[in-house]
């Protein structure tokens, strides 16, 4: 439901994995071939003097490294913090206009809280449901309601869906229009701790 960029996540994991695999593979192969190992270690010890001298005599290299690290940290922090957003507080906006589905005297904004409270109230007494939570998300420029229901142990998921569909039909009648609704039926910790089905 959220706006996490999943392709980006997979690309980042893939690229880091590829770098580690190639680096590890190259070093392992290089170390096992005596010729390569000789050449590389010789080259490395030859390069040791000049590189340490360069770092000592030209401190700007260190500043460049520091700035590069800072830029990478900012990019990675942005990447980590942009995960999981997409919830919205506004369910529906109807702009002023002359068409049938528009208001004539002003702008109408319906808060997601309205849908949350109406649906949670309607489903609170359903026997098969231990708890219910309604959240609005913004998916592809559309408001989508997510109804998460924790099922009582042993209840048929089709029964639960039927009850929720009825509540949604009532809500549609109340709202006068339809917004997409996603029902999530879970059997998490709360339903494990709930008593087994009571006779309904």
């Amino acid at each position, binding site marked *: *439901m*959220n706006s996490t960029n*999943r392709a980006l*996540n*997979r690309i*980042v*994991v*893939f690229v*880091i*994995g*590829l770098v*580690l*695999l190639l*680096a*590890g*593979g190259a*070093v*392992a192969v290089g*170390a096992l071939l005596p010729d390569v190992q000789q050449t*590389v270690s010789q080259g*490395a*010890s030859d390069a*040791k003097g000049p590189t340490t001298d360069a*770092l000592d005599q030209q*401190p700007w290299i*260190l*500043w460049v*490294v*520091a700035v590069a*690290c800072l830029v*990478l*940290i900012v990019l*990675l922090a942005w990447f*980590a913090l942009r995960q999981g957003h997409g919830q919205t507080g506004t369910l529906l906006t109807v702009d002023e206009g002359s068409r049938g589905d528009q208001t004539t005297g002003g702008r109408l904004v319906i808060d997601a809280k309205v849908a949350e409270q109406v649906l949670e109230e309607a489903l609170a007494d359903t026997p098969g449901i231990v708890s219910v939570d309604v959240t609005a998300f913004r*998916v*592809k420029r*559309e408001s*989508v309601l997510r*109804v998460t229901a924790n*099922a009582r142990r*042993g*209840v*048929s*998921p*089709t029964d*639960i869906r039927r009850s*929720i*569909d009825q509540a*949604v039909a009532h809500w549609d009648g109340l709202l006068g229009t*339809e917004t*997409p*609704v*996603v*029902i*999530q*039926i*879970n*059997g998490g910790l709360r*339903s494990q701790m709930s008593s087994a*089905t009571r006779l309904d």
Partner: protein
Amino acid sequence: MSTASLYKRIVRRETHSSRAGIAITLAVLLIVVFAWIGTESVLEAVGQAPLLLAPTDLVAATLDAASAPVGALTAVAVVVALIGLVLIVVSLAPGRRGRRGAKADRTVAVVDDRVIARSLARTASYAGDVDPSQVSVSVGKRSALIEVTRTSGRQTDVRSIDEAVRDELDAYDFSPALRHKVKLSEKGTVGA
């Protein structure tokens, strides 16, 4: 975007992992490493004592590592390569979350496999007239295995369990659909 394709997209996203956990973990690890390198660089540039290791020593140590004993170098490299391989597999695997999507209508539903398993277990225990604790159900990607432990000294009607479970599965419109198998255990429980 039409509602049908919107629902399809949402079901796909809700039934598969976003890989956010591993991506954030890697990002945090890299941030720590870069923060350390950056701090050490600034400390050396302004002439302060290093926290752990000055960049000059760090570069020298890395170059020295090339002539480290072959065995140690290979071992470290193989471990690094294996971690890389695991990450590549994780990034390409579908990452199912143990849920399945139902047919979209006015609404669309995503159901946890555990709910399905418990529902089948209840159906089986009613149909076979056995205690719910004698039924265990495991739901895989495309199949559900119902294991019933018989009550010692009593007949257990496997066929009625099988029919009841089939009826329940037929009422489902989940994809991937489930095939089922009822297995009656050889040993019975006493006094249930």
